[in-house]
């Protein structure tokens, strides 16, 4: 296979694999920037994916090709609602945020399959007819060479996510809301004394994380799968967490890390067609993002890169 042909396979595959990682990682960014660690991203993705697949199956009869978009919207809403549990437990009840996040993961894994049994009488949703199809992006796909590589036969959701990243960067760094969010995650006491409602900001952060993780889950199931099963998300929420750390809690860092990890997964899929990679087992590519993140953590160590107050419950009046 010649080089250009290979590139033209790898780029769309990378974009498809990266979209759910980036979206969920942006979710994690909102939560952690507000001071709440969210290792429940994996579970929230499951909720989003399950809801998106189920709604798509249920409405595609009458609605046809718009149904996956309604499914994704439902996944976003479900993720947001479900994350309120994590918000309440870790913000109001000051529970250990890692334990609460783990509980979210366990609960989502059980609940989604339980509901599949109730709704579809099997351990998975029915297969949907209308996933999100690959398409040419109007206008941009006409650009010579680049249009063919980047904008032809791709999932439009990948570009939607990239647009979201730009928007999130603007919101987090250029608006008063973003400043408050970051203040609450760095030094909640100081933010409180300036009249910022710490609890409210943290609730917004966690619920946004649920919505973006739900979006990631919805995109994932509708672009990479034919139905929701227990293995649909298979650790992508944790890769998103890795991308957040690797991207140093910055939207563009997250974008870069997400694309990089997406490339790793894409290479895992096509490696057998590439001479110098075909000797590597597929598992190598699956494990790669995790190993890389551990190395990155060691390299970054000693410098404070994460939000300072992340993981610590805030109690009014405490110094």
């Amino acid at each position: 296979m010649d080089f250009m042909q290979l590139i033209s396979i790898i780029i769309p595959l990378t974009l498809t694999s990266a979209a759910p990682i980036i979206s969920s990682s942006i979710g994690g960014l909102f939560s952690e920037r507000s001071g709440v660690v969210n290792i429940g991203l994996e579970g929230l993705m499951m909720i989003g994916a399950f809801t998106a697949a189920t709604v798509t199956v249920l409405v595609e009869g009458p609605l046809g090709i718009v149904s996956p978009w309604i499914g994704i919207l439902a996944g976003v809403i479900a993720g947001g609602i479900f994350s309120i549990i994590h918000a309440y437990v870790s913000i109001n009840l000051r529970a250990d945020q890692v334990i609460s996040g783990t509980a979210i993961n366990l609960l989502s894994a059980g609940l989604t399959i339980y509901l599949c049994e109730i709704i579809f009488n099997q351990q998975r949703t029915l297969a949907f007819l209308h996933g999100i199809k690959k398409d040419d992006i109007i206008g941009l796909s006409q650009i010579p060479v680049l249009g063919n590589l980047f904008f032809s036969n791709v999932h439009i959701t990948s570009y939607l996510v990239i647009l979201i990243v730009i928007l999130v960067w603007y919101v987090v760094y250029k608006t008063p809301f973003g400043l408050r969010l970051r203040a609450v995650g760095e030094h909640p006491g100081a933010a409180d004394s300036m009249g910022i409602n710490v609890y409210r900001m943290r609730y917004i952060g966690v619920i946004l994380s649920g919505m973006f993780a739900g979006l990631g889950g919805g995109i994932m199931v509708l672009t990479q799968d034919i139905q929701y099963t227990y293995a649909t998300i298979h650790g992508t929420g944790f890769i998103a967490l890795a991308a957040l750390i690797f991207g140093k809690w910055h939207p563009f860092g997250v974008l870069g890390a997400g694309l990089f990890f997406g490339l790793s997964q894409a290479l895992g899929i096509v490696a057998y067609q590439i001479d110098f990679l075909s000797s590597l087992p597929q598992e190598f590519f699956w494990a790669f993002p995790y190993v890389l993140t551990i190395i990155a953590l060691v390299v970054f160590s000693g410098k404070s890169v994460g939000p300072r107050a992340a993981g610590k419950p805030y109690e009014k009046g405490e110094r």
Partner: protein
Amino acid sequence: MIKYITDEKNQRFIVPLISVLFGFIAGAIIMIITGINPIDGYSALLDGVFGNTRKFGEWIVSSIPLILTGLALAFGFRTGLFNIGAEGQFIVGAFAAVAAGIFVELPKIIHLPLVLLAAALAGAIWGFIPGILKAKFRVHEVVVTIMLNYTALHFINYLIKILPGSTNTRTVDVFPSASLSSEFLSSITRFSRLHWGFIVALLAAFLYWYIIERTTFGYELRSVGFNQHASEYAGMKVNRNIVYSMMISGAFAGLAGAMISIGTFDYARVIGASEGYGFNGIAVALLGNNNGFGIVISGLLFGALKAGSSAMALAKVPKEISEIIMAFIVLFAAMNYGIKRLLIHLRKEEK
């Protein structure tokens, strides 16, 4: 009654009990919403655990690995470490036991301890990585162990496939001398899969209690868990203790893996997603109050939920309900601050 429940002295075990109660109530609410009679569900669960000796045997089988991962998590908690990587240490332990059981054949009396040692050692090595990274570079163990869980999953899946004789889904059986399974135990429990692992779990719980409560080392670990800086000031080697604690925690989790691979199955399986024993260990440890005896009891409780789930499935209750109840118990256990506040509130009303 209320006075007893709200008495501060009894909170040590009242709070976990309330978490369990709330967990089952939450499970009942889910069943009601989805049109299932919770009484049917829970009576099927009880029948699935106590119905006959075979079911009893399967209950113990389900509890064994949970007790061990519970000990793993608790050991970390006592030192102020959150070993969320028990899942990964479990996977490497399960594989190491099988590898040691395939490559050599020895008299059972030597072979069995050897494979268990291999599992514990593999878990300890997998626990050493986050331990040393925390001690040397101050990298938080939660993130490192999460990453190591998936590294272990993929790495071990690869190793399983390249072992001699392996198919794409499993290895060959280990030599009988390396297996924990027992025809005797199976025959007295109407052919359940009950194996000698229950002795391993009980010995491990005893060892846990002994290390934590009866040795200077255990005292130092608890001291580091309470206040790292004070311990350092008192001349304890905090960094060394962090590494040792992660390794011992990993050893317990590695043993738990062996309980599945050479106890329940006699071979190692390629798995698509982690099976949650390590994560459930969090629930077991929290509920057992990080106490050796308490962990055995809470391990048996969660084992009952796991074992009873197939009986529930027969009664047309999706078996995932047991996972849901477990998750709620973890959630409520995490909320113990809220539960304590509720108890204080109740106490005030009483007065």
